[in-house]
Structures are given as structure tokens and as C-alpha cells.
């Protein structure tokens, strides 16, 4: 799981071209979106791009239900849980 989380963090940094951010800077359970003390403060456009990056990197898509999708995108932890549950081995 730790390996997957690191991969997710690297994907976030690469796909969103975040500068001055390393994988170790991203806190596992911090909210990725919106204003918060230890989060990244991403916006809805970033979410679209992350979705595309996740599809390309892990082969996992999201369902049509938007509220559910929001929960999965909450933090690195929730993304990792969703990806590992839906990834085809």
C-alpha cells in the first residue's frame, strides 16, 4: 500500500506539474482539494486531470456518480484504497 501511495503522489506531482513539492511533502490523509493547513489546495480542473492521469497510470476509471467520486478524491489514502480495490491484477 505504501508503494502505491508513493506512486500516486508521484503521479499527482507529475501530472499537475507541481513545483517545489516532493512525494514526502504530501500527507497521506490530508485533503487534496480546497483550503486546508496541510493539503495541496487543488481545484476542480486539477481533479479532471488527475482523473485522466489515474486512468492512464493505473487503468482505473470512475463511476458516473459524482458524489462518490468526490469521496475517492479526498486524499491520497482514499485514492489508494479506491485504486487498489478496482485495479485489475
Amino acid at each position: 500500500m505504501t508503494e502505491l501511495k508513493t506512486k500516486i503522489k508521484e503521479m499527482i506531482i507529475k501530472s499537475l506539474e507541481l513545483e517545489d513539492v516532493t512525494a514526502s511533502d504530501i500527507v497521506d490523509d490530508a485533503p487534496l482539494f480546497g483550503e486546508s493547513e496541510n493539503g495541496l489546495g487543488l481545484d476542480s480542473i486539477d481533479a479532471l486531470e488527475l482523473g485522466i492521469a489515474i486512468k492512464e497510470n493505473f487503468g482505473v476509471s470512475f463511476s458516473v456518480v459524482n458524489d462518490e467520486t468526490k469521496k475517492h478524491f479526498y486524499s491520497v489514502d482514499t485514492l489508494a484504497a479506491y485504486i487498489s480495490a478496482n485495479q485489475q491484477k
Partner: protein
Amino acid sequence: MESEKQQWFEVKEVGGSLWHFRFMLWITCHLPLRIVELCTALVCFFFWLGAKPVRARSNVYLEHLAKVRGSRKPFMGTYKHVLSFALSMIEKLLGWRGAIKLQNIETQGDDLDKLVEQLDRGEGAFLLCSHLGNMEMLRSLTGYGEIHTHKEFTVYPVVDFSGTSKFNALLYELNPDLMNIVLDANKIGVDSAVWMKEKIAAGNVVVIAGDRTSANSQGRNVEMDFMGDKANFPEGAFTLASILNAPIYFVFAIRKHDFDIRSSYEMHVVKAKTSFDCSRKERPERIRLLVQEYTQLLEKYCQVHPYQWYNFYNFWKKQT
């Protein structure tokens, strides 16, 4: 001020119940088109008399246009604008009932060939259309494909349903298959972004209007010179283009004769010079360039067919 805030998309379906639209459909299908046009002209006249906010916004547009063309504002221009819009609705119903006839479309020897070649190679595209002319004509591209391209593909329209729910309910009844491939512009999320990207990668076409305005799009705007004045265009469609990062084309299908629904169409296809093979930092500037290309074309075609721009929205309103 509150009433001023109420924009076109909120006014659009005034008095329109599904029953009205059904009646309109019946008339459209059972009476000769000449009579239909006459009825429309009459109904529009009374609507026009009563719809002051619509007149006012139409007037703002026609004033800007007159300034750019260096001509005087036409007599009864706002009425002609409303009438042309009503005719387009009838045209839309007719279009959804049956197939669009290819022989009614006159191509212009422009970038259409590039687009066809690209689709033939199995590469998809992102099209930016507008409320100028008849967007339904874009569907004819698939028919065009059967004749001119070897590959089969689908046109997926992204449509804003918020202002026209009843009319759309009727469209759905007319052609459920078509409605199933339509994406709701107000529900674009992670799932649909991935879906669109996949569809384009598989050689299909996604199309969205760049002059779309809705309650949801009032957040991010791009300020642009448009018809001699600063105007605000919602950024959404252009941002989507940047995320999908596919080749972009501008498409306009315009009735040759403004007030004749049997008129043939001219189809203009222009490949965008702007692409998004750049870093995220450069992206806002590229989006600006894309909006600029788009608005310049829109302005150009609006000058030729002013009444076919079905946008009763004040783009020039100062942002507060």
C-alpha cells in the same frame, strides 16, 4: 438590478410547457412549411412585444454589430433576431425527426478536408461550435463520414440542459438514440473527462459550444475584444479543450437565407492554430489565444448572418 441579473437562460422557456412544444411539433409536421413560417412570424411578433428583457439584450448585440460593420442598426432588428431563433427551433425539431440531408450542405473548401483525413487515420478531434447557425448540422458530419471517410465515428455533443429542459424532453421523445450520446455540460466531472478522452482517442469527435452561458459558468471568464468592446467569454469549453489536448477545430453551419428554413447551409471548418502541447504554466495564455481565435471567427460570421447568432445574453456586461 435583480431583474437585470436574470439572464437569458432563465427567461428562455417562458410560457413553454411540454404541451406547447408538442403543439408546435404537430403544426410543424402537418402544415406546409410556408404556413408554419407565417404562424411563427405572428407568434413571434407578440412574444417580441412582451419580452422586453430579450429585446434589450438583442439590442445590445445588434448595436455592437452595427458599430463594427459601420452601418446603421437595422429596422425591427430585434424582432428579426427573435424570429430567426424561433425558426431555428422548428428546424431543430425537423432535424431530430429525420436525417439531415447531405445535399443541403455546402462545404467551403476549407479545413474540412484536414478533419476528414484526420478521422480517416482513426484520430479523434475536439470541435468548438457556437450558437451561430444550426448546431444540429454538425451531426451531419457522421453522415458525411459514411461517404467521404472510411472510418466510422460518432459525434458526441456536450450540451447545456439547464435552460431548455422541456424542449429537450421533447427531443428525447423524437430520437432517444441521439439523446443517449449527449453529455450534460453541467455535469462534467472526472468520469466524463476520462470518458471524453477515451472517445477521442478511439477516433471519435466531441463537440461543445464556446459561447455557452449558464448559471454554472459565471465563475471563470476570459476577457476578450469582441465586436469592438471588451466581452467576457466563459472559460469552460476552452479549458476542456486544454485538458483533452486533442486537435481542435472550429465549426459553423449557417443557413444561407436567414428566414427560410428550407435554405441550404454553408459549413465552415477551421483548424485551430492553438494547441496544448505545453506546460501547465503556459496554459492560461494558450487558452486566451484559443478564445481569441474563436471570437474572431464568430465575429466574422456574425457580420454576415447577424440574426442567426442565437445568443440573447449580454456578453459585454461589466463584471462587478
